[in-house]
């Protein structure tokens, strides 16, 4: 079996008539941690959203291949069931559904069988404890009235519970204080193993400090223009994107 988890080939994506991704290529193997950095408006979040087929974006060209299967025509829920997960930049607030019931429903759908309640609760409580989430959040309405940090931790909690093969973290660290960022990286480390991969979209390198990063990609103007190891992230932090902006076209 191929070691490839995700292949993106020559991807073009529009949002509201505007061309955002312009021939993007990316390959992620099982067990790897990839980081995408880039200036505002380069298309980082677009990439995350299009991998899960957010209907707000239109893929006009190219292929997205997941575990060897072209998933261009699959809807969001079908892609999620195949094992793709995204931690949202701004998680939605949904009144009337508790965190635990929501995760339970999603787990049921994903595994195709009802969860074993006792084990589920135990696992949920353990993960919440690791993420420094108060127990009572399990019964609170999904993200309703949560602080920014609590919402992001709740995303990581869902990732840990749903166990996707590809976890995309769309600026999960943005707006978080140092302690919360540490908790998020702890969550990523708890999740990550050689049977899954992580794609981290970020502006800063703080979240990377405790992670073993395999590749760093620089995304500018809809394309990945440079790929390197973790030292590339440090260089960006020091010098910014100025040097790369000129490489355009």
């Amino acid at each position, binding site marked *: 079996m191929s070691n490839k988890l995700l292949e993106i080939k020559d991807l073009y994506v529009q949002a509201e008539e505007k061309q955002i991704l312009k021939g993007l290529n990316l390959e992620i193997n099982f067990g790897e941690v990839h980081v995408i950095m880039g200036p505002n408006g380069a298309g980082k979040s677009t990439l995350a959203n299009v991998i*899960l087929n*957010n*209907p*707000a974006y239109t893929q006009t060209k190219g292929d997205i291949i997941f575990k060897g299967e072209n998933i261009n025509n699959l*809807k*969001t*829920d079908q892609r*999620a*069931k195949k094992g793709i*997960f*995204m931690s*949202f930049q701004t*998680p*939605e607030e*949904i*009144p*009337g*559904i508790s965190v635990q019931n*929501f995760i339970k*429903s*999603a787990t049921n*759908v*994903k595994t195709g069988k009802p969860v074993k309640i006792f084990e589920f609760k135990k696992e949920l409580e353990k993960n919440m404890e690791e993420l420094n989430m108060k127990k009572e959040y399990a019964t609170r*309405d999904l993200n309703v009235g949560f602080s920014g940090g609590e919402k992001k931790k709740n995303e990581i909690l*869902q990732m840990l519970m*749903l166990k996707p093969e590809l976890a995309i973290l769309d600026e999960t660290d943005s707006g978080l204080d140092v302690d919360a960022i540490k908790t998020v990286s702890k969550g990523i480390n708890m999740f990550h193993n050689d049977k899954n991969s992580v794609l981290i979209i970020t502006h800063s390198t703080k979240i990377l400090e405790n992670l073993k990063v395999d590749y760093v990609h620089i995304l500018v103007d809809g394309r990945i223009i440079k790929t390197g190891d973790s030292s590339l992230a440090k260089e960006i932090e020091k010098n910014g994107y100025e040097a790369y902006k000129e490489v355009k076209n």
Partner: protein
Amino acid sequence: MAKTKVEDVNTHIYDIKNDDNYSYKIQKGLDKKIVEEISNMKNEPTWMKNYRLKGLEMYNKLEMPTWGPDLSVLDMSDIATYVKPKSNINTKWEDVPEDIRNTFDALGIPEAEKKSLAGVGAQYDSEIVYHSLQEDLAKKGVIYTGFETAVEQYEDLVKQYFTKCVPISDHKFVALHYAVWSGGSFVYVPKGVKVEIPLQSYFRLNSPESGQFEHTLIIVDEGADLHFIEGCSAPKYNKVNLHAGCVELFVKQGARLRYSTIENWSKNMLNLNTKKSIVEKDGTMEWVSGSFGSRISMLYPMTILKGKNAKMEYTGISFAGAGQNLDTGLKVVHSAPHTSSVVNSKSISKSGGIATFRSNIVITENATNSKSNVSCESLMLDSESVSDTIPVSNIQTNDVEFSHEAKIGKISDETIFYLMSRGISEEEAKAMIVRGFASPISKELPIEYAAEMNSLINLELEGSIG
């Protein structure tokens, strides 16, 4: 051929349709002869017949409502106001004719009675076919009977209260109700008696081109406590059916009454129901209401907070789908000091449905130190649907706390995307959002009805994805 489509219990209640197998169906239309015939068939006292004739007179005098949904689809000459089923009042389900019993079985009534009810009344078309009350409650003096039985056996009590809460001249359809009323329940809870588990009356209208006009009168005497549940449904026909029931509630000093309604009429029904409650000192009236069915509903339960420290709480939800115009709301009159009202309403509209919520809060000069808090939220599932809130208030004293909050929202694509990104289908994502929106209300419903409401939401949303 006595029973037709009831074998399949999974069939939705709109599809259970028995043959129109009555023992007597009065000719369509409305005139003095018809009203007198109903009265004669019921062998009732003259005072009751006189009320009926007064009702007819007022009906002919009063104008159609000039506001709200268009009622021009209603043609009284096409409605049979009285349909007597082939059954008497029974106290055992085994004695109820099979086709009728099967209907109530499919609706889960006998099952609920075993598990969670202290008494049950079941009306089929114009007459009660089953009535029961737990023995220990009867021993404590609780009365729960069909309304005709009450007129016969508790004539003085009925006479004392009948029309005293909802007057005959209230509006055109109340007048109609008084002219042709049939069936309904009578409840009396004596002083200090707490009825721990609910009583439930269920109304089923099977006969096409007919009307149901049940009268419900409840007296909860001083310090007593009651939860009364009312359920209604009908199979779907092509022509209009009419429901113009009337509910009169008396909550005495220090008493509490919770009145829960789940209205699930078929979508050819005009539901023009009238409900009103008078609450004495320290009394509490709680309305819980779920409106899902009917083509047109006009339903605005009214509460008069008559005594000092009287309280009212209203929790309601309506769900208007394609072709439905649900015009609901409430009216509260605070007419004594330290009275309070809390209103929490939610409405959902989809596929062109119209959901309107009207609130009318009156705080009279006497009602010093009173409080009223109205909150209405609507959720529109698509851009062709309509939701509206129409708040009216008339506050005649300065010494009050009054607040009104209205929120109107739509399901956003981002929210659906969020749920779908966890593997949940679009259909289920929408249903989850709607169930979540409705959940503060479903928590207030009797549990079987909360489950029924959720399955209704799922049913309504099935196949709604374009």
